């Protein structure tokens, strides 16, 4: 029996015609506009890989993801199936329609070279960080520093203790786990496949993730 070398079928959580299927290398940025109604499945290929993510209305990028509005409207800091990912205006940009993990982070934001110096020491300043990915990938769409705000961290686990102590702890994800987001409006999705090596958000070892966009058929969407 021969080992098949064919690529595995796109592991979309919501079936439909494949619009896009890309692997994001460890430590790399990624972006795409997901059309309203299409579904983005993010696959944590090797497990416990934080995927930092910002959302912008494609028609007007000043309408952008707001962690605060998202948290407040659902009265929870945890994202999972049913969570609406909202802009500062209150408008839902995307909605989590399927989730194999159950906990994703809204409060930890992105790592930066500069904040790494506070958290881990000056010796980490020259390590690659998410803010760099956001800046470079955002610049392709005309975005800049002013457009970066506290972001979503898919597959990242940040509990808050009764006394307010919080921290990035070991993830709850595992190889192949997925989360799927339906675009409620045409949405620019900006991603940093997190390069952090100083905390457990990537299991101390950044790995690739897979992005699959599907367009559910009119039949399936009914």
């Amino acid at each position, binding site marked *: 029996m021969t080992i098949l070398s064919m690529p595995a079928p796109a592991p979309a959580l919501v079936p439909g015609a494949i619009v896009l299927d890309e692997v994001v290398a460890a430590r790399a940025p990624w972006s795409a506009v997901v059309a309203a109604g299409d579904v983005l499945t993010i696959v944590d290929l090797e497990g416990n890989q934080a995927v930092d993510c910002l959302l912008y209305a494609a028609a007007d990028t*000043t309408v952008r993801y*707001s*962690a*605060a*509005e998202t*948290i*407040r409207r659902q*009265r*929870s*800091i*945890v994202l999972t199936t049913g969570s609406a990912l909202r802009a*500062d*205006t*209150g*408008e839902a940009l995307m909605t989590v329609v399927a989730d194999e993990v159950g*906990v994703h982070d809204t*409060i*930890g*934001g*992105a790592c*930066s*070279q*500069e*904040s*790494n*110096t*506070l*958290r881990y*020491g*000056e010796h980490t300043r020259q390590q690659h960080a998410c*803010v760099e990915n956001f800046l470079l990938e955002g610049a392709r769409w005309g975005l*800049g*520093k*002013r*457009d*970066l*705000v*506290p*972001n979503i961290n898919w597959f990242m686990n*940040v*509990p*808050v203790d*009764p006394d*307010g*102590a*919080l*921290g*990035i702890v070991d993830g709850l994800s595992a190889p192949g786990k997925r989360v799927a987001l339906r675009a409620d409006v045409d949405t620019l999705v900006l991603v940093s496949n997190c390069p952090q090596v100083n905390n457990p958000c990537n299991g101390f070892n950044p790995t690739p993730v897979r992005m699959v966009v599907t367009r559910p058929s009119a039949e399936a969407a009914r």
Partner: protein
Amino acid sequence: MTTSTNGTATTAGARAHARAQHGRVVPTMRHVPATSAPSLPDDVPADAVTWAETVAFGRYTSLALARGTRLRLVDVAGDACVHLLLHRAGAPHERLNTADTVKVPWQAYLGTGHPLLSDAGRLLATVVADTSGRHDALSGTTTLAGNTERYGAGAAQSASPAGRELLLLGALKHGLGPRDVPPSVSFFKGVRVDDAGRLTPTGSAGPGAFVDLLLQVDALVVLANTAHPMDERARFTGTPVDVVAWRAPDDFAALAGDALVGELAPEHRRALENTQHDLTARSPR
């Protein structure tokens, strides 16, 4: 009513009518110069005051303050909620980042000793006094759509203005725009998170609570006094807030010397050092 000699049918009359209003004192106003404020907290050095204002509930204000300024917010009647943004003066792309402000110090709840951080690894300000303990760095402010649904209106000029509309106005006054308005923090109305991640509002600590911030950079302060986004009351309800700022060189030195809020946590210390490093590098001396 007939037109009197004080009437406004002529330019002279209109001018006299306008000038006759000068010097009026109302309950919610800025006092200029700040040293003319009719009353100040007992522990505030009157000759060092640079800002004294009472902000009505539903309104906003802004001022650029120098490094080393101590800013006090006083919830006089116990039902204010102050939504705050900080932008670095002259480089406003560097601004308060709520994620780093809770992540870096490993603490979700603001209180004495908490650093307010930009995403550039620098300290913008420190909470140096807090008698409230009811603050919120997680749930942001209110929106036009939300207040319209909730109270029937949310525009800045309405009877129930949304926090984001007011903060945006404050930013616009300084040449900034919507891109410059990130999630804000709020003071005097708190939230708590349970072990499942759910949020519960705590309400107010009561009349007279105050919180002091000590600025580590020259900063644009924009603040709005309006309902907390998780306020559970059906009507738009709140009270004014007193704002007082003064130059506090002794406090500034004491903070760095671990003598104002105790020994700074290592992340806080490094943020302070990063800010000092940045300013030293810019300085010709």
